[in-house]
């Protein structure tokens, strides 16, 4: 709020100039994301020359027929590129969910997992991975997806029958999160041995190991739909910042819009969690970073968060693949290790300027 007011008294560009600046910045961001994904395809523990990377990409993107080894092709096209794209999509999607939830719930500490989605996902994954529910027909991913949606549904029900408003939803989310965490711990404690849990837990901490093209399409597609929905609703998100009553007086269908956006973010988060596990930090902090950069208006915050998230995750994952070889650092660890200092630096910089 204070930022918005402060910006209001300074120089005021014409609406046309301003939208040109925003469009230009977004274009630069898109180019930066594309370059980062391209760079990620050239970096990794395996020794694949730049020329070979180019040839592999030309073969697939430009239908060239340059001979390359099967191994080089697999490393670049089946490992590094899908992985970088899923990283970018996860970063964008989690950032997006963070923006929406922080605005809807008027809570700066809201993140994509505040509504119990990640703990529901772990319960689902553990039930599949440890107890073998579904007899192997369901993978960990589908278990996580179903678990995430069940948890979210329960939280919505709780919120509906206990209280109204954003605070009630947050409290219901806390209750749901703890309940499902307890169920997960119980299953692990009672039925699992160390190795069975290790696989599930490693993945739940956030992992981009073994990403393939089907996951890429799923992640990119879902995030794109989510981004469009959010951009359309950007004005309503601005209105929510002033509270439900003001939003209603501004012509927003408070209850309907809130449920619609909550369901949209829950679906998006559930898809991302089922692909790459619960990657923390991104959804909580990047929206704040975006607000520090471009103010409070969601027409700007949403695209900037999406691009920041994509850039950030692509590079964090690349660094954690390269710097910790021959074993990869779980990406959820890397996001906080790299992200917290960067965020603190941004806060300090901002303060020293004002």
């Amino acid at each position: 709020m204070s930022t918005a007011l402060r910006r209001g008294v300074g120089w005021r560009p014409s609406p046309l100039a301003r939208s040109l600046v925003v469009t230009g910045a977004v274009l630069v961001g898109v180019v930066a994301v594309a370059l980062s994904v391209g760079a990620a395809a050239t970096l990794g523990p395996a020794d694949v020359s730049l020329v070979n990377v180019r040839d592999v990409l030309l073969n697939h993107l430009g239908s060239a027929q340059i001979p390359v080894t099967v191994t080089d092709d697999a490393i670049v096209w089946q490992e590094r590129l899908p992985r970088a794209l899923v990283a970018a999509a996860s970063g964008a999607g989690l950032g997006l969910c963070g923006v929406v939830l922080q605005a809807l719930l008027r809570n700066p500490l809201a993140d994509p997992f505040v509504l119990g989605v990640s703990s529901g996902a772990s319960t689902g994954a553990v039930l599949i991975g440890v107890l073998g529910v579904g007899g192997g027909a369901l993978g960990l991913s589908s278990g996580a997806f179903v678990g995430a949606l069940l948890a979210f549904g329960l939280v919505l029900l709780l919120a509906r029958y206990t209280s109204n408003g954003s605070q009630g939803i947050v409290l219901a989310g806390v209750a749901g999160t703890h309940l499902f965490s307890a169920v997960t711990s119980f299953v692990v404690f009672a039925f699992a041995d160390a190795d069975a849990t290790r696989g599930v837990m490693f993945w739940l901490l956030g992992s981009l190991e073994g990403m393939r093209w089907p996951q890429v399409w799923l992640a990119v597609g879902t995030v794109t739909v989510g981004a469009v929905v959010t951009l359309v609703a950007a004005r309503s998100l601005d209105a929510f910042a002033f509270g439900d009553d003001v939003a209603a007086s501004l012509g927003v269908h408070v209850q309907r819009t809130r449920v619609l956006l909550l369901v949209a973010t829950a679906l998006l988060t559930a898809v991302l969690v089922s692909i790459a596990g619960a990657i923390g930090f991104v959804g909580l902090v990047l929206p704040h970073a975006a607000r520090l950069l471009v103010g409070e208006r969601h027409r700007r915050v949403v695209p900037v968060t999406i691009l920041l998230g994509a850039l950030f995750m692509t590079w964090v994952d690349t660094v954690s693949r390269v710097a910790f070889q021959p074993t990869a650092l779980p990406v959820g660890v890397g996001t906080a290790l790299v992200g917290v200092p960067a965020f603190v630096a941004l806060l300090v910089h901002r303060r020293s300027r004002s």
Partner: protein
Amino acid sequence: MLRSRAARPPLVAGVVALALLALTGCGASEAVPQATGTATAGEGTTSYPLTIEDCGRRVTVESAPQRIVSLDQNSTEILLSLGLADRMVGTASWTDPVLPSLAAANERVPRLSDNAPTYEVLLDARPDFVTASFGRHYGQGGVASRERLAETGIGSYLSPTDCEGDVSINGGGKRTQALTTAQLYREIHDLAEVFDVQRRGDALVAELRARAEAATARTDLDGQRAFFWFADTKTPYVAGGLGSGQLLADETGLDNVFRSSRDDWPAVGWEQVVAADPQVIVLGDLQRDRFPGDRLDDKIAFLEHDPLTKDLDAVRNHRFVALHGAELNPSIRFVDGLEKIARWSAEHGDDR
């Protein structure tokens, strides 16, 4: 806004292509290296293509693999024992120092990582065949699935000691039948066949069999109650009734007090241990410091000072047998484990 979003995918592809061209546009494509002509010949005892049954799947090997990566230490030690060091291009997941008799051969093989490597590190070794003792490497969160390896023409093998049908015990399954020595020897025969060194495989199995028989022939601990303690002081991991610890017990006449558990290494409480009143305690002497009590000295110190365990007869009389981690797990060092129990039995077996 929306217009620029819609233009995104072609824009991305274009930018990537432009950037790559700018970076490497002038570089000539590199020649694809041909398969090395100097293939190391095997014995000629295996005829290819060979199809073997491995963990519920049929594995077909077109020709003797020339670039082998072993993902686990036991697999590594079998391959080295079969004299295959010159065909190995990587090892991983080390839990103990290599067997002294194999140290020289092991020097010649690159160690990809101390723990599990990533998929890309594995591919960088350019393997044409991958072996593993534990199924977790092929599962979710592991190195790569076997299907994925097959996509790049990499064959794979999983130890029968970790399998029951197509279920990997280590990958999250549970045994329903007890592990047998036949499964241990089957792994050696399988690998010897895949790599065309069947005579060496037969010799290795014969040697291990002879040593195992020599050790067990003179050992019968006459049903003494035994507690196998692998690791951890808070909730000790102990040998269950279907795994390799039970196999050691069966072969030497020990009565494993936790044989009713179906897990390989279930975690139990000290109260259960004391209630079972073991007469012999088999201790894991692990070469790592991950959990309290990994080392032999720590285990003994714990048993002698813990108010619950210090008055057990086995503790007062120091009836301890120390085995390394690999000797307690399904591996060729299982025979070393048998020999250690036999030696202990000869010296202390009767003084109870």
